[in-house]
């Protein structure tokens, strides 16, 4: 079902007279999914909006050369992930702070964010996530939020599946402890 939709989109984009329809379908199909994936990494809505725009600009630039070796959705996920990470690195440089400081900065911002209405426990989860080392945090978010398979996370981050599983379990334990303690 999903594969059919993906093929349909790719076919539409190939021909110049249907390209607009193809773009529209791609946006409709994936924008929300990609937005939430990005939002959970960058936390702020305006930042997520900026990153999402960059992602689609890159996607439309590259999609004509998309060979279909992997699923379209995984390809999009990978671009969104890379774009988000690049964005965070840039933001850290701009604020002249390191990864850990950036994460806690983002969570602090969240408390005053009108587009965050999470309750105490949801905010605590974000705070707990901010305490994790960068890689552990990324892996936990991918697995827990986006339900990406360990195998796919390993491929995306160029790690072994065992390392990804171990990192996820360590991260989950740390979060559990943080929430209990809080």
């Amino acid at each position: 079902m999903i594969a059919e939709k993906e093929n349909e989109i790719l076919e539409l984009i190939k021909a110049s007279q249907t390209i607009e329809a193809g773009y529209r379908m791609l946006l409709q199909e994936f924008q929300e999914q990609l937005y939430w994936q990005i939002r959970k990494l960058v936390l702020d809505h305006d930042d997520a909006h900026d990153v999402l725009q960059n992602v689609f600009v890159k996607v439309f630039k590259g999609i004509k050369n998309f060979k279909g070796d992997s699923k379209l959705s995984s390809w999009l996920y990978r671009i969104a992930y890379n774009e988000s990470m690049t964005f965070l690195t840039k933001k850290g440089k701009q604020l002249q702070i390191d990864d850990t400081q950036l994460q806690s900065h983002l969570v602090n911002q969240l408390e005053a964010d009108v587009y965050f209405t999470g309750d105490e426990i949801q905010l605590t989860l974000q705070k707990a996530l901010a305490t994790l080392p960068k890689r552990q945090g990324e892996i936990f978010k991918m697995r827990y939020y986006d339900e990406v398979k360990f195998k796919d996370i390993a491929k995306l981050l160029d790690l072994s599946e065992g390392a990804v599983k171990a990192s996820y379990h360590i991260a989950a334990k740390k979060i559990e402890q943080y929430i209990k303690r809080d």
Partner: protein
Amino acid sequence: MNKENKHNKDLGFQVPQDFFKNFEESMLTQLILDEKLGKETGFQVPDDYFESLEKQLLPVRESKVVSLNDRFDYKNVLYPILAIAAVLAIIMTMNTGNSGSLDFASLETSELEEYLVDEASLYDESTIEILFADNDMLDNMSFSDGIDDDDLYDYLQEEIELNEIITE
């Protein structure tokens, strides 16, 4: 404000009303525009403009170099310099020969401390006061007059933006 749960475990994150509908439209417009217009701006420069620009600018530097070579015979300049250098080299070797070799390990801790204290004293308030005692520039400056808050705010805002651009 919309709460979108389709792809979102309930984490408390929200998006503005109609965000996705508007995003789709604006993104599509932008992409179609890019597709039709490309990134060409239409601005052109004359053929070989940058090459000729280089040529226009380069002679300024080259002519100076050439004139120096023309005017002076290098021997006239070089020989006295070499002579002075030789004399200096002899004097320096004689001096260092007397005092022995100097390295970091041979420094006394107390000497190091003294040096650091001296250096630090340059930055304390009283030293600065003494150094600038006869300088009335600061006295003649007025910080409170003539700058209104809006101007100051605009100035600082610009500085921040500039800083952001530089560090990006």
